């Protein structure tokens, strides 16, 4: 009986971690859908979001949700600037050039963060008292509930935005055919900017949630979750919004199950093994089909 309980507990923990991956993966997938770029610096938006939240809470004495909002806005601004300065001049260059630029941008954010915020990790302020809620044999913490709540709200909001608003329609149009969208009078540059803003804001939220969850933030915290969220996006089918959510949740669960089954140092290898298998077996991802609408 014991192992079933442990597995259930890990499933729950995995879903919490997975929601965070999903939030980050959404940004990857939206940006990829719209300009076909793997934004390597996306993991850094998550890191910056955590730091923005940290300073909003410690220096400006904001409570959790206002701090989250401030951090989302700040990260959105950084994301938009990144696209303006580094990616836009390269929009018609070979994709490899843009990819190298993205890697450069990622390193730049990391090392700048190290200079500005310090290389040592910071304990994230606990803006919420820790509580454990017993659910039969397993328990859930209020931080995990927060992660679930915030991610679900944001994902639903994003879904509504993409599906029902004029902006969402424009975004889907740009993703499908940039030139045609331009001819229809859609301001493509603006759509791309807003996409970066949205993606960065989601990643920033994920950063704060993880900062609270693990109680620590550091300048390199974005690298691994960034890569794993990318794998999650590929797993679900890159460019597809619900795919990012499914992929993220699956990744989180898979990782936690591996930790239960054996070594916790292997958890980082899981993501990449999953990636290679997916790319070989089903390169379009779980939800990807030819001709499927991409956002």
């Amino acid at each position, binding site marked *: 009986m014991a192992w079933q309980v442990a597995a259930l507990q890990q499933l729950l923990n995995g879903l919490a971690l997975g929601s965070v991956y999903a939030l980050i993966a959404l940004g990857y997938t939206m940006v990829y859908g719209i300009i076909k770029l793997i934004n390597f610096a996306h993991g850094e938006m998550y890191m910056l979001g955590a730091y923005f939240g940290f300073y909003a809470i410690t220096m400006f004495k904001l409570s959790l949700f206002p701090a989250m909002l401030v951090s989302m806005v700040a990260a959105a601004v950084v994301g938009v600037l990144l696209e303006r300065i580094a990616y836009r001049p390269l929009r018609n260059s070979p994709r490899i050039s843009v990819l190298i630029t993205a890697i450069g941008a990622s*390193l730049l954010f990391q090392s700048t963060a190290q200079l500005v915020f310090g290389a040592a990790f910071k304990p994230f302020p606990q803006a919420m008292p820790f509580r454990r809620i017993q659910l039969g044999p397993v328990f859930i913490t209020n931080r995990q509930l927060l992660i679930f709540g915030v991610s679900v709200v944001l994902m639903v909001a994003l879904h509504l935005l993409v599906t029902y608003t004029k902006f969402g329609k424009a975004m889907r149009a740009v993703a499908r055919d940039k030139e045609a969208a331009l001819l229809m009078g859609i301001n493509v540059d603006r759509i791309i900017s807003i996409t970066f803003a949205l993606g960065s804001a989601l990643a920033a939220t994920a950063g704060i949630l993880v900062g609270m969850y693990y109680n620590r933030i550091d300048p390199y915290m974005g690298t691994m979750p960034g890569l794993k969220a990318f794998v999650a996006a590929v797993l679900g089918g890159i460019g597809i919004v619900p795919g990012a959510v499914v992929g993220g949740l699956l990744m989180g669960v898979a990782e936690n199950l591996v930790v239960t089954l054996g070594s916790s140092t292997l958890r*980082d290898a899981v993501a990449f093994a999953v990636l290679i298998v997916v790319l070989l077996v089903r390169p379009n991802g779980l939800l990807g089909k030819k001709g499927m609408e991409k956002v």
Partner: protein
Amino acid sequence: MKNKLTGLVWTALLALVYAAVRFLEGRGVLLPYHVQILSLCCINIILVVSLNLINGFTGQFSIGHAGFFAIGAYLSAYLTVKLQVPFLAAVLCGALLAGVSGVAVGLPALRLRGDYLAIATLGFGEIIRVIILNTDAVGGARGFSGIPKYTTFGLAYLIAIITVVAIHNFVSSDFGRACLAVREDEIAAESLGVNSTYFKVLAFALGASFAGAAGALFSHYLQYMAPTASQIGFLKSIDILIMLVLGGLGSLTGSVIAAIVLTILPEFLRGFAEYRMVIYPLLLIAVMIYRPAGLMAGRELSLSSLLALGKGARTHGQHS
């Protein structure tokens, strides 16, 4: 005739450089520390030039080069430390295993293109690192220490020269032309009867085996290997990539120059060490925006007149 002359001039020049280093070392002008840095330059040249074969000449995009480097480094160290295998044989074994892994990774992964391939190679590099981290025979997370110092400047220099010459010859051969054709237009190359998968995997494996040799030299140079991101992981791959991109994809001399400059420069900038990782990425972004082909822009030795390498070198430049 011209080719022979060029070859002679090059041999003379390279011998002269070696003699000069030895002479200055004997005179005490170059301290052991300086010679160490020069050995590191040679190791980095091997890494960058071999990555150039994959990324520059064959048009693939690998960011997992450190994985092959790690295989060579750890296997050779294991062989010399635990099994007392002679060093050169260990280097060969390291290169061989790295090459074989290159085939094993390349066959499935090279079906992917561009950014997918990049992520897959990155994933492969990380998997290698995690495997090493979990292998107690090579020290696991504690790192592998007590590796004998077998790498001398002479040996590293020699292997670097062999690498550059081998890859230069490969690229100018029929095989190399096929690789270039794959880079320029894979579909057109296929339609002309070039088996693109074969050449991609060939280039990948060849590049990987040289990276393995570089790893073997490195572990017996540093005498200690740690399974960290900056030594054998993602950051190492990026380091190699930065050198490659700054030197210029598809330019061997560019790779050599960039490897030397970017190895020596940080030693002068010790006081600004924390700014190094701010400046490098900025440089990378600026190069991509303003000079995407890299400093050498796919040419060979266009700086020859500046460097006054002489007429022989210039004709060589036109040949390639």
